């Protein structure tokens, strides 16, 4: 029997590597190999969940659908889509489950809709589905009732209708809605979750479900067909682009850092964060990737979101903003047990209040990329960007929390200083293009020179002749590679060459790369950071070590899970995923590295 055994659950928790993601541009569901949907916020990605078993297997809520007999499993996304196909193989036969969050069209459809479509392939397979809806991260009371034979789950302003077609007679028992049915070759069943938020429910007809599913598949394929080819690793790049598209919050154009909160960076540890916000830190990578992929509308929407969101705090920037552009991200803890006991489970993110100087460089680099692609920066935005450059002139001598948002004392992080240099350099270039007012250009250039002197004198290890984590320290940090990728210094200089080699030798572990050495104010350790590996591959290409870059990239694209998704981190000894997923920065870095290596190879 082909396929493989599904990864076993431990204390009710599937390995993070076992999750695939489906979404509709508003929210994302995570589906484990065993057919259980263990994560689904409603109505938006940053809303409370109806399924959160990945954070509490007892009270979080989930939606299981699988054969009743032991099974093997094979998964893939339908080609060029975010529609997941899971094939279950049992001794009795074979059955295919196709999961999709459908995209609304001109017909009157539910507010959000998740379809689970079951097709009998061979033999007769007994299937069971069970739904444990638990609104409000499992904390809000949920009322279950049957209305004209249709199970309904209601909690405050949210409601869910479970519309089952040829999937057994739904029954409600003990807070669970479920049904059993048997497949035969050619049989087709559907269980659809039709969700309402602050409006009446809609109960779609079977024909409408079918039509909407077909249109959803077609919509994804149309989107992929319009993307520009980017050379080798096209399959991994396309999957990354699709994962990124899932994380784009359709109403605003913001890109969430990941789909989840509090999936741990160390099992049982405290490094659990809510990533359902948009980080300015990721902006240059995001815009660059969108432009390289030919996603001009998404790039424009994203830039405008960035400008709109940062207006609230201007000229200062928060490290992150809400997906709707709001600035508040108050952090609190939920009374959930956490993934394999990893506590606390946080919502909100206190990093919003940190000072991270690198964000200014990221924003101005983003503006530069945007303008360089021929897009127009109007005088009002230009004046605001100039204010930000002036602010960088005043702030760059201050210590900050750095790109990694350490919770230890602020420091003079090398990466932050490099990005301050990038901020002022790009401000000058934008002014040369007429996109920014010119009165302060000379001052920006003078301050940029001072920053460069500071970096070259204070942020370099005499012993290694390479860049260190922070001024006056001998610690290492892979984030300095971003300085290289953003254009700080000459990539072919000996210092950059030695820095890249040092990062590879001392932070690397095979294809894996850890973020940094030294203190960060938190207890425990963490896995290797996926993005750092891709940054290293790109840096190798930029310093001229193309063969090494290509070899590393070949290794890296194999590190994703069975459907090509990446989490934030990977434990090198086991290959286990750690941290939130799917992680936008991991996929952005993959796209960036693949395109950079292709460029250098050309």
């Amino acid at each position, binding site marked *: 029997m082909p396929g493989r055994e599904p990864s076993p659950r431990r204390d009710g928790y599937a390995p993070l590597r076992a999750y695939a993601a489906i979404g509709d541009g508003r929210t994302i569901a995570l589906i484990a190999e065993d057919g259980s949907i263990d994560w689904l916020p409603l109505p938006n990605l940053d809303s409370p969940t109806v399924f959160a078993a990945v954070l509490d297997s007892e009270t979080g809520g989930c939606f299981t659908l699988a054969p009743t007999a032991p099974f093997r499993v094979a998964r893939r996304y339908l080609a060029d889509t975010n529609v997941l196909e899971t094939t279950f193989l049992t001794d009795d036969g074979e059955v295919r489950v196709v999961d999709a969050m459908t995209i*609304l069209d*001109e*017909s*009157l*459809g*539910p507010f959000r809709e998740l379809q689970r479509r079951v097709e009998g392939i061979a033999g007769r397979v007994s299937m069971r589905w069970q739904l444990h809806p638990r609104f409000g991260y499992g904390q809000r009371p949920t009322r279950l009732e049957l*209305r*004209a034979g249709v199970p309904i789950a*209601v909690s*405050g*302003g*949210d*409601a869910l*209708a479970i519309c089952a077609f040829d999937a057994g007679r739904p029954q409600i028992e003990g807070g669970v809605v479920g049904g059993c049915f048997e497949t035969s070759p050619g049989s087709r069943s559907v269980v659809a979750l039709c969700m*309402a*938020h*602050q*409006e*009446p*429910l*809609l*109960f*779609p*007809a079977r*024909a*409408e479900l079918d039509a909407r599913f077909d249109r959803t598949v077609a919509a994804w394929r149309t989107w992929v067909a319009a993307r520009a080819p980017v050379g080798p690793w096209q399959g991994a790049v396309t999957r990354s682009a699709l994962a990124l598209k899932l994380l784009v919050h359709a109403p605003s154009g913001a890109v969430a850092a990941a789909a989840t909160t509090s999936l741990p960076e160390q099992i049982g540890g405290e490094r659990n964060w809510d990533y359902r916000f948009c980080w300015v830190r990721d902006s240059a990578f995001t815009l660059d990737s969108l432009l390289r992929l030919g996603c001009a509308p998404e790039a424009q929407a994203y830039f405008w979101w960035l400008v709109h969101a940062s207006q609230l705090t201007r000229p200062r920037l928060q490290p992150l903003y809400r997906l709707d552009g709001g600035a508040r991200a108050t952090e609190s803890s939920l009374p959930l047990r956490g993934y394999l006991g990893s506590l606390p489970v946080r919502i909100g993110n206190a990093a919003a209040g940190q000072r991270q100087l690198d964000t200014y460089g990221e924003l101005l680099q983003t503006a530069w990329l945007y303008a360089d692609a021929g897009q127009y920066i109007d005088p009002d935005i230009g004046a605001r960007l100039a204010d930000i450059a002036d602010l960088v002139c005043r702030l760059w001598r201050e210590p900050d929390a750095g790109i990694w948002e350490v919770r230890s004392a602020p420091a003079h992080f090398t990466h932050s200083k490099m990005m301050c240099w990038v901020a002022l350099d790009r401000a000058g270039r934008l002014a040369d293009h007429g996109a920014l007012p010119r009165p302060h250009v000379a001052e920006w250039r003078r301050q940029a020179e001072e920053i460069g002197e500071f970096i070259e004198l204070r942020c370099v290890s005499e012993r290694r002749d390479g860049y260190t984590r922070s001024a006056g320290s001998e610690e290492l940090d892979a984030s300095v590679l971003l300085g290289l990728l953003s254009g700080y210094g000459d990539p072919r200089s000996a210092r950059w060459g030695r820095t890249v080699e040092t990062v590879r030798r001392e932070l690397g572990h095979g294809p894996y790369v850890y973020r940094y050495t030294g203190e960060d104010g938190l207890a425990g350790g963490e896995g290797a950071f996926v993005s750092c590996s891709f940054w290293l591959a790109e840096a190798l290409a930029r310093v001229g070590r193309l063969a090494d870059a290509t070899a590393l990239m070949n290794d890296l694209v194999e590190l994703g899970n069975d459907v090509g998704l990446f989490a934030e981190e990977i434990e090198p000894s086991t290959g286990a995923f750690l941290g939130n997923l799917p992680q936008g920065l991991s996929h952005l870095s993959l796209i960036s590295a693949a395109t950079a290596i292709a460029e250098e190879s050309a």
Partner: protein
Amino acid sequence: MTVWPALAGGFAGTLVLTTILRTASELNLTRMDLPFLLGTAFTADRARAKAVGYAAHFVMGLAFATGYYALFLAVGRHDWWLGAAFGLGQGLFAGTVLVNVLLPLVHPRMGSPLSDATTVALLESPGFMARNYGLRTPAVSLVAHVLYGTVIAVFLTLANR
């Protein structure tokens, strides 16, 4: 006493009623969305349905205001408490008959006891006092309608001082 103050009051009262329902919806007290319910009777396009629904809602608000005006004329007074009582009566009528029984019968996309196999989506029917949209819906709806009636009476009182 002319009908114009009643119409102005009907417009203002509908504004108040709509605001209360929308606020209650944001506070997760109810899923009742009158513009959506009314608009989907005319179109399947969500955005258009809401626009049409708001327009229809205000037209109905004005139409009911003329009915209130006739009642005030008939009883020869238009005290605020009388307006509130009319609003309470309308709220009860809307919850028990208008929205609960009549709307599902005439709404082409709403399920009713007469619904059978169909190829189009059906909207969740309101149920008695629209409680299908949340158990607090009757209270929210009655408060909103009482204020609607009160506003019309107050407009008439102010105009006839």
